[in-house]
């Protein structure tokens, strides 16, 4: 315990650690503020767009009224009626845009969500109803169904939605959509979401690999307990060599202290956006619905024929609090896993820079390109594991949260054991 406490003190007293800590902290706060400002800008742009629409329709209505008058004066009743109908239509559109603008400006999301529900419901109820389109490409029925249920949940719990770059239906993008070309760009633009609240922002960060990045920074800062002290110039390990305790204990003191600090660092960084948001927009609702795919039936003719079924595949939602709880437990396991990998690497390679590049590359290549059940790096993208996105795309229901937790933990134990054996061998603990 003395050595563990001493190792903790050493980690605490390194100025470079604190510098890196504060840079990361400021980076996250800065990113949140930037994200918030972009969200506010988009929100204002949406309001301005509705204002423009309202004025444009009003102007069109006025033009139609003038045309109607001219047609009446010319005695062309048919034309006059046509212009009258146009005028009424423009006036209605102007009123609608004006009303929407008010809702947006006052953030009366209930009405806006209600409008979305009204526009989506007919698509579900009547399958003969033409689908929604972006440019000339249809939005998948799965996306429509998921979006509708999301809106219904937002309405039920009176939850403020994300800001999106559109004044029309705020779609929830899903893996079932298959757009291409400029339509894909447009789709990505209008479905990109901007969370202004702490929980929402964190939720989005997690989707953008925030967790592995933060853990990698953490292990880079705190995982060099042995490597930094076994160089030619700095022989810190020799300091312990002539002290009256087993060097096996030294290994665990160094391993555990670094691990504890990496865990602490990770949780502080996860908390940072939430704490920061308290000074700005608040934390948001933990009841926000998170889409979870139920998966698709694999083809009986073989994996080559596997295809998602947007009409019949099912899904469900979990609340953001359940999502965060899973992320929290997973974070612990991910820290242990990546820390163990880094610790083992650092026993062979003394340069922390090389180690972090190696581990970072392994993590992202393993995560992106080899989505297999027994590849531990598959589970690093925890968002896609919790939402079962990878399992659905791979038609492999075994790629799921619990498998990931168990696999990462077991692999971590094995790696730690290898590290210990290597350390013990090099330090002649088993003579």
């Amino acid at each position, binding site marked *: 315990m003395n050595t563990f406490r001493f190792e903790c003190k050493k980690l605490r007293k390194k100025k470079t650690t604190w510098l890196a800590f504060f840079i990361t902290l400021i980076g996250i706060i800065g990113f949140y503020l930037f994200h918030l400002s972009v969200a506010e800008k988009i929100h204002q742009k949406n309001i301005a767009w509705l204002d423009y629409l309202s004025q444009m329709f009003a102007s069109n209505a006025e033009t139609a009224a003038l045309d109607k008058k001219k047609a009446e004066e010319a005695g062309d009743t048919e034309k006059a009626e046509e212009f009258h109908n146009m005028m009424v239509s423009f006036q209605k559109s102007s009123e609608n845009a004006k009303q929407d603008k008010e809702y947006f400006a006052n953030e009366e999301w209930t009405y806006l969500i209600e409008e979305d529900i009204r526009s989506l419901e007919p698509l579900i109820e009547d399958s003969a109803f033409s689908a929604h389109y972006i440019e000339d490409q249809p939005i998948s029925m799965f996306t429509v169904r998921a979006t509708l249920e999301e809106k219904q949940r937002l309405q039920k719990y009176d939850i403020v939605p994300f800001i999106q770059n559109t004044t029309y239906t705020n779609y929830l993008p899903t893996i079932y959509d298959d757009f291409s070309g400029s339509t894909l760009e447009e789709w990505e633009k209008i479905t990109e979401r901007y969370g202004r609240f702490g929980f929402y922002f964190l939720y989005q960060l997690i989707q953008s690999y925030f967790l592995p990045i933060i853990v990698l920074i953490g292990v880079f800062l705190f995982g060099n307990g042995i490597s930094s002290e076994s160089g030619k110039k700095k022989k810190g390990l020799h*300091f312990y*060599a002539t002290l*009256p305790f087993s060097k096996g204990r030294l290994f665990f003191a160094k391993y555990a202290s670094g691990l504890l600090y990496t865990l602490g660092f990770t949780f502080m960084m996860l908390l940072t956006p939430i704490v920061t948001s308290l000074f700005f927009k608040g934390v948001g609702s933990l009841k926000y619905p998170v889409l979870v795919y139920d998966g698709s039936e694999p083809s009986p003719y073989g994996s080559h024929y596997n295809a998602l079924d947007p009409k019949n595949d099912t899904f469900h939602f979990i609340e953001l609090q359940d999502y965060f709880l899973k992320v929290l437990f997973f974070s612990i396991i991910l820290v242990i896993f990546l820390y163990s990998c880094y610790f083992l690497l650092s026993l062979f390679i003394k340069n922390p820079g090389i180690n972090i590049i190696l581990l970072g590359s392994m993590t992202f290549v393993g995560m992106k390109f080899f989505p297999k059940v027994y590849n531990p790096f598959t589970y690093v993208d925890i968002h896609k594991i919790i939402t079962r996105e990878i399992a659905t795309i791979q038609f492999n229901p075994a790629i799921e949260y619990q498998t990931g937790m168990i696999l990462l933990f077991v692999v971590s134990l094995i790696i730690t054991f290898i590290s210990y054996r290597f350390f013990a061998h090099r330090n002649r603990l088993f003579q």
Partner: protein
Amino acid sequence: MAILSVSNLSKSYKKHLVLDEIELTIDGPGIWALVGPNGTGKTTFLNVITNILPADSGTVEMLGKSNKDPSIFKQVSFLQDNSILFDYLTGYDHLKYVCDVNQIPKTRVQEVAEYVGMENYLHKLVGNYSLGMKQHLLLAMSLVNHPKLLFLDEPLNGLDPTSSILMRKILRELADQGTTILLSSHNLAEIDRVTKQILFLKDGKLIEKDLSEHEITFYHFIVSNQTKAMELLSDKYETDNIPNGLKVQLSNHQLNTVIDLFKEHQIDIFDIEKEVTGSEKLYQEIFEVGEES
């Protein structure tokens, strides 16, 4: 029971044999100096006997226990080089930890800091220490556990004259209190002042020498007529000029003869200082080093 017993100890780096079947037994308290040119393996020898480095063969026992038993370090200390210190910690942090692992009350920190004269900078970061201050800290760390056997690797490195005097005083006191000390050093003049028991390390072997059998005494005379004094003695004794006087190699009974000779030739003697040496001469003989080199 031998305090230190080294048997058949060998160590090589790749094909270079550094320690060659070394045998050494130290039975009682005292100070032993380990001497050899750079790269002969003095630090390797100390590292191997304290099990920091593995030996290729042989055994080492300290106070009746194998050097592989970590519990021996409750009674054995090793002052290593300052690369083992952590720059971002204070001297106090280091000493307190050494106290903690030895299960010694932390009041010992202040005690030992005062003993080695580092109480003024005990709470400063080691990164701001001078070389001498680091040596003091290393010494303090090695004294925390009241060692019965103490190894010191170049303890006099970077010490100013005041610190050197203090270090010598501490080593003598420890030896008087029953501690066995084995120190490596390049500084032959300092070695002459602390011990007469020397272990020369040459070609991987230890050569034990008792300096008292090879002692050479020089007398430094400060005289009124340096030239005349030189003329009188240079034919009969080994002499050398020093500022305002001369240095003469003499035995005790020859001293009176020289004093009488100066009186006879009306040369006034203002001061006489005795210098006992021997290690340098022995070093030259053993390592076949000429004066010109």
